[in-house]
């Protein structure tokens, strides 16, 4: 095929994508005008279809300017969501959150399956230094800024200095949480390979476990600070131990069963993954185990205790190509723009401080660990994104410390919104600059 023909075909496809996107928006708008009050309940069907098509087409157009697909998914959701064009109502967005269950299970499975024991062993020194500096410096710096500036702005004198200290510590823990989903989505799109990719995956996945542990520990000490009548109780640490041990044990079992299935049968993985995502997560909720950790361990077991890791990753990629679009587009629709507008100065300041301290902490940790130059230079880029995990932890904090009210969580949502939008762009840029991204091969169509 000549360059001119290829160029003409590329132009035709881009034109079709723009026309398709306009068509999808136009259909939704006309349908809403024709039937302002939908008949029956299933408005979710159109919403999922719209987010899937809209996200897919917006992401294809984002590709032209070098933005990651994830940004396109988010953008489509924001535009269609209840705060901009109102094509998708708030209740529908809430109902679509069911997709998160499946998406998070797939993300954790893929995250675990991407971790090779050999790589972890090789990166142990790097992970140890970087986790240490991130957890130390970022937690302290963002906590200090929250205590000094943002906290008083948001809470005034309502919490007292002790309560504000506790809130600052909790904020610091949230600041060191990352987004495994964004990391995996970018890597899945770019098919990146190299030291930066390996480091980012290993760090983001391992730091999840550290964040969960740090949060539990911080909550133990924050409780008496927030409520002077409360005493120091290690009950939560006991519950956490039960949760972690149980999750690891169950994750190992699921991983072994999955590996056996992949080896002996190996078909209809779409259905198996969906059943795992919904069915097992429901069981884990009942048992009070952590789904993220369980699926992470399951994926790790499949990759490292069997030779079925690649097959599992391929199946997740096929399934994820649909699920992740809806997941991130729903996240976009969920972005509370009025809240962001109201809180943007505080949120921007906190996000900036977090980003700067993350970069500094990474540079320090990476030099101490003697990482490869490309990791030293760009390794921080995958640590900026925040999404579902951070929001989930903020819900736990809100429930455990009602005195913080909704203001604390609102500030979290506003800050996460900024990191959610900017983080993936920075990570994609870093992968491009470090030349670890690969051209996408044309694939054979096959059932997911």
């Amino acid at each position, binding site marked *: 095929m000549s360059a001119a023909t290829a160029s003409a075909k590329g132009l035709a496809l881009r034109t079709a994508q723009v026309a398709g996107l306009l*068509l999808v928006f136009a259909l939704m708008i006309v349908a809403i005008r024709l*039937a302002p009050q939908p008949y029956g309940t299933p408005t979710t069907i159109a919403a*999922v*279809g719209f987010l899937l098509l809209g996200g897919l087409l917006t992401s294809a157009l984002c590709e032209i300017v070098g933005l990651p697909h994830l940004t396109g998914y988010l953008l489509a959701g924001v535009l269609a969501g209840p705060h901009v064009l109102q094509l998708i109502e708030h209740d529908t967005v809430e109902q679509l959150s069911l997709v998160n269950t499946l998406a998070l299970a797939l993300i954790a499975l893929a995250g675990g399956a991407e971790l090779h024991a050999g790589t972890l062993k090789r990166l142990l020194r790097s992970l140890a230094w970087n986790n240490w500096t991130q957890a130390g410096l970022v937690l302290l710096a963002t906590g200090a800024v929250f205590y000094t500036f943002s906290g008083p702005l948001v809470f005034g004198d309502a919490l007292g200095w002790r309560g504000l200290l506790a809130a600052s510590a909790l904020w610091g823990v949230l600041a060191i949480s990352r987004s495994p989903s964004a990391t995996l989505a970018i890597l899945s799109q770019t098919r990146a390979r190299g030291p930066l990719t390996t480091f980012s995956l290993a760090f983001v996945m391992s730091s999840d476990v550290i964040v969960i542990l740090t949060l539990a520990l911080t909550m133990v000490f924050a409780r008496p600070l927030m409520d002077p009548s409360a005493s120091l109780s290690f009950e939560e640490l006991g519950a956490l131990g039960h949760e972690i041990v149980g999750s690891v044990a169950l994750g190992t079992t699921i991983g072994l069963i999955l590996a056996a299935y992949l080896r002996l049968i190996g078909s209809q993985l779409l259905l198996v993954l969906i059943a795992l995502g*919904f*069915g097992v997560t429901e069981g884990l909720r009942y048992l009070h185990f952590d789904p993220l950790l369980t699926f992470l361990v399951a994926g790790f077991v499949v990759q490292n205790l069997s030779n079925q890791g690649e097959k599992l990753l391929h199946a997740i990629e096929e399934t994820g190509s649909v699920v992740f679009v809806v997941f991130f587009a729903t996240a976009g629709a969920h972005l509370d723009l009025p809240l962001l507008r109201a809180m943007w100065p505080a949120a921007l300041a906190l996000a900036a401080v977090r980003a700067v301290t993350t970069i500094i902490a990474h540079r320090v940790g990476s030099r101490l660990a003697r990482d490869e130059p490309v990791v030293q230079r760009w390794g921080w880029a995958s640590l900026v994104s925040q999404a579902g995990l951070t929001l989930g932890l903020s819900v736990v904090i809100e429930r455990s410390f009602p005195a913080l009210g909704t203001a604390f969580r609102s500030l979290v949502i506003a800050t996460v919104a900024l990191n959610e939008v900017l983080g993936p762009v920075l990570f994609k840029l870093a992968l491009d600059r470090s030349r670890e991204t690969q051209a996408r091969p044309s694939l*054979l*169509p096959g059932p997911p």
Partner: protein
Amino acid sequence: MNPVLLFVGLLVLAYLGSILVGGRAIRGYGLPSGAEYVLLGLLLGPHVLGVLTRDTLTAFQPLSLVAIGWLALVVGLDYGFVGDRRLRPRVVIGTIGVTLLSAAITAAAAWFAARRWLGLGGAELWQFAAAAAVVTCETTRHAARWVSERYGAAGPLTNLMADLGDADDLVPLVLLAALFAVVAAPNLSYPLPWPAWAAITLALGAVLGGACAALLGQTLRSGEVWALLLGAALLGMGLATRLRFSGMSVLFALGLVLALSSPHRAVLRRMLVTTERPVLLPALVLAGAHVQLEASLEWALVIGALLVTRLGCKALSAALLATVSPAARRGGPLMALSLMPAGALTLSMGLAFALAFPGKMGSLVLAIAVATALLGEIVGPGALRRALSRAGEIAPAGSAEIAPPPAETAPSSEVVAS
């Protein structure tokens, strides 16, 4: 019942369905109509064991709609072809004409029966008559395929039966678009006559199908193809539901236009055909659970009258067929019964009607669909087998071997690069 458990149960059924598609050894087993899954749903439903409550069924309504819509999409994409063989235009036109005639006769019978025994009148009577015609006029595509897979049938009559089963699907799906448009028209904020809304229903699917074809372009990427097809299908079904249009008709038109305008028709068809059975089985169970057993003598009389009318229509169709086709003449008098099998499409349209028009009329239409499928199951496959034996297209017992899988159910690994 916990919705998540039910969902996992439906996934297990889908898994079984995928095995039925994928495994050559057990292809041709089960019933061609899928009636056993309808009966399973009936058993689990609120009227017998109560494992599936009404609330659960309501919660799963979106899933039911998506499943039956997906079936219509596959039918549309496959329309006009049996495997890789294109149907001759005169077969398609002739079948459409005969099916329209059957639908008109059945509608007239339903009109008289419902007026006499149910006391219906006005618009409701017309709607019921049309709905009854929709769920009693087709012959399932799966009957000929089932007999050919199970008994290794091959020959002109086998091909003819497969052609008829495929070509008649257009009629009920277009009629369904018109029927839903009649009800939708007064509720929409822009006044147009119902034929215009019926045309818009089909145009919506056609536009989405054309857009999919344009977006797929010349190259296919696995993940994007699924995302695109699923997105278009869900958007089409969702918009149709919002507007009270027939989602099945929208997705049928989507599939049809996609097949006509995309250079990847064969690849897409093979991709989607493998999903038909996995999607269908859960849908049939949910359809069975929706069936109401509050049958009265009047209901039985109406259903009985319609089944007799269907038999008469099929006898008329067989007689017309015999005048133009030597292959049909070789099938002999059993041809009328051979045209009786109804299956997934009939049941899905019955379910679509029951979901869109909850109440006695919706329930009765679904009951008619189930009765049509059950009667077809009892008399159809056996008669078809004997007709094919008589025509010499099935080898005598003992010498027959299971035929190799036909192209339309070939495993997905055969999918080729474009």
